[in-house]
């Protein structure tokens, strides 16, 4: 059965259409890369456990949003309950980099009153020869926004783990320090369950259950 986790973080992945959001998530959650994939409709869901320290597991629930403009009004509704986000652009597509600002503004406007931790991701770094965005300028932008920058490739599985785990660690630190709190009615961070800690009367009753066999 499902392993026990300390917290559940909800992450949202945003960015222009065709920058590779779904491919990145699939690589991370399923370990595979699909050459062709259909455009995402609205939002899709993935989840995976990440071990940030030995024995400390975080469940990531990832909301994969549609990048297409026509779904924008829908995806907006999904921001609010996320504690973290990956803001993707395609390093071979200058336009997608220029739109990063717009994505960030939109996200900030819709996560209120909660805070969200972003990482800027330059995707498709395997296509270095077609690069239109230099690492330097992307790093500069990320610094200006106060976020990490990382270059990834879903196809060659470069930095995919790192992108997600670094973000998870950052969020975990904030939660640990009490800068992000679990709140009623907010799905961004949920606490998990540690074995043999919770004892309700019900569990006690159950302990003397008869074996089925």
């Amino acid at each position, binding site marked *: 059965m*499902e392993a026990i986790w300390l917290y559940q973080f909800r992450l949202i992945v945003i960015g222009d259409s065709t920058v590779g959001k779904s491919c990145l998530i699939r690589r991370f959650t399923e370990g595979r890369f699909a050459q062709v994939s259909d455009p995402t*409709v609205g939002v899709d869901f993935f989840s995976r456990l990440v071990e940030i320290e030995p024995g400390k597991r975080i469940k990531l629930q990832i909301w994969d949003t549609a990048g297409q403009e026509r779904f924008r009004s829908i995806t907006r509704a999904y921001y609010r309950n996320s504690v973290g986000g990956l803001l993707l652009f395609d390093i071979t597509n200058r336009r997608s980099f220029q739109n990063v600002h717009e994505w960030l503004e939109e996200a900030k406007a819709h996560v209120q009153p909660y805070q969200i931790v972003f990482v800027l991701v330059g995707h498709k770094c395997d296509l270095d020869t077609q690069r239109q965005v230099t690492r330097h300028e992307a790093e500069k932008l990320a610094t200006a926004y106060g976020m990490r920058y990382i270059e990834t490739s879903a196809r060659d599985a470069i930095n995919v783990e790192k992108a997600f785990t670094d973000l998870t660690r950052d969020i975990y630190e904030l939660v640990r320090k009490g800068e992000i709190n679990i709140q009623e009615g907010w799905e961004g961070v949920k606490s998990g369950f540690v074995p043999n800690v919770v004892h309700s009367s019900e569990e006690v009753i159950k302990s003397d259950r008869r074996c089925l066999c």
Partner: protein
Amino acid sequence: MSSEDGKTDEEITGTSENIANLGLSSNEESIPEEIPQSAETPKIPKAAATQDIEHVCHEERHEECCDTVNLEAAPDPKPDLDSEASAKGSTWSTWGTWGKSLLSSASASVGHGISAVREKAGVTLRIRTSESEESAEIGEAEAGEEVSVEKADSPTEPTSPTAGRGVFSALTNAVQNTGKSVLSGGLDALEFIGKKTMNVLAESDPGFKKTKTLMEKTASLSQMLREAKEKEKRRLAEQVSDERTAHYGMLFDKYQGLSHLEALEILSNESETKVQAHLSSLGEEALEAIKAELIAIKDIFLQKDFENEEESDSKGEETEEFTRMLTELLFELHVAATPDKLNKAMKKAHDWLLAESLHPEEQPETLSVNVQEVAEVVEDNTTGATEVVGKAEVKKKLSSEDIYMKSIENLAEITARCIEQLHKVAELILHGQDVEKPVKDQAVVLAKLTSAMCKEVSSLSKSFIDLLTAAGSKLKAEVLNPTVSSIQLEGNNSTTYIQDAFRLLLPILQFSHIQATSSKA
């Protein structure tokens, strides 16, 4: 033993029908109550925004912050759907709907309710014991005790009078057997307090509007399901690893059913806010005009006959029938939602059934444990439908425990896929493509689609039970019965979730209609 089973099944179905009837009739019932209010303030009445059918969770979500526009139909000229059911007092029936919500959430944790009770109480205990127990528990937690107690105690169960008694006697039975003194001692008190509370509330809060708003805040559908799941998880943490039970709630979440439901709920809420905002910006005449249209859409949702007609035996060709129907209906909707994932899940279930029923004579009597196999299947969610079928074929000797586990998993997966499908449809409708098809027609198609899904799920759960019964024919009744009941119950829950998801579509369609009309103008 088999007659015992049949009886249990019947009773369960009976109850769920009753519940459905109550829900529907409650809506009709509540109309007279609200008319005077509407008459006082004709433009924007403060009456409940009872746009939602029986989903109290969504009713009146704007109640405290802004005036809402009443979308309740004027006195319904049509006769009540169920005249007997409508004989119930109107205030109680509103609570009946709550009972239903609670019940459906309660049953999300049923996998656990059952295992909790079945070992304790033994087979004499009907499955609904755990259900009522669960709802009683949740009721307490939600400070809504009166609902569940009232439900269990309801003297006017219309279509099957035995059902009400069944719950109660089962409950008493449970109390005797489990010795849960809290429950037995508290029951009368609970009922008493419940009634008192209701009376007090009724005086200060006609129609329980504020109360419901309050309750709504603490519990939305997906919220309740989540809590149920987490409870299950918490219990799992305690459990020794070699104990095997099927955890519907967790599997449902694994297939992202909860997420889709939550996302659909978000869209539904947003749409309703937008509908209300639009309506309150209109002049009186325009308001009346559009109100009539929106009510017409709502009526389609109300007319919906959710009850499952007689189920025929499910065979391989039925999958194709369902697939064909699904594709056709989605095509009719004029939204580009492909049912691939749902079809795959359905096919997987049917193929498995078919493969299993070919080797019924080889079923072993003992419960061989094959954790690995099940774990693999669980991991393998969207992709390897064929692989799974392959495995099932190779591995001819499935124990009845395995069949039980796989049945529950199949139900959870298919239900999650159905809800995903409805969520996708909602997103596509909302994203404002040119509406080639009038929203009213879309509503009709969606109602048909939902009905087809529910029917398919019920027929599947029936097939699972048949398979399990055949495989476990040599098993003792007290071993077999709880698993049979559990499948039956989770099957019923599955259809409830699908119906709940369908109801969430109403504000979305209404908003889509407003968009379409205003773009025309």
